[in-house]
């Protein structure tokens, strides 16, 4: 199986956010909100870190 780096980021963020959402909140609505929040944070954080590393290199 091959996967792009961004695909790996999306998969990692999805799986991790599901577990965080279920385990860190009690109400179903809050689980979904927290899971979505974690997903966005993971993806955006990775993109920002990637651009940061690119800026350091250049």
């Amino acid at each position, binding site marked *: *199986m091959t996967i792009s780096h961004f695909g*790996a980021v999306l*998969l*990692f963020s999805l*799986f991790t956010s*599901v*577990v965080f959402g*279920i*385990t860190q909140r*009690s109400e179903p609505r809050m689980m979904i909100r927290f899971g979505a929040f974690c997903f966005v944070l993971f993806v955006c954080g990775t993109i920002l870190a990637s651009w940061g590393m690119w800026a350091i290199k250049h």
Partner: protein
Amino acid sequence: MAAKIDYPLAPGDKGLATAATPRISPALTLLTGWLIPGAGHLLLGKWIRGLLLMAAIGGMFFVGIALQGKVYTPNTGEPLDMLGFAGDLGSGLLYLLARMIGWGQAPVLTAVADYGSKFIVVAGLLNIVAAVDAHSLASGRKQS
């Protein structure tokens, strides 16, 4: 109508048990949740949560295997490998299955395979989080 039983489920419980809610040992829930991802929640009747956890943790583990990630072994002597082994062990029976079949024994040569190794380790760590959550639900420390 379920008959009321006049004792708390656990020290953290505020409510009273009913005959319709059988008591499940928190330790058993923790052990089951560790051995099989999501099984602790299934044991407590939290079907959707259990199945989602099973899909997420199992999916992460098998994506890691499919990316040709490394499954760590305990006796390499390298400190980082020992940490990786501790993380992998969190997957419970999935780790034992991978060792028995021989998955993840090839050397890591690509960046994507290195991602796979991390996927497998994080799947184990997430499974520990899920098992502890099931324990908290069973003991009453987490209300719902």
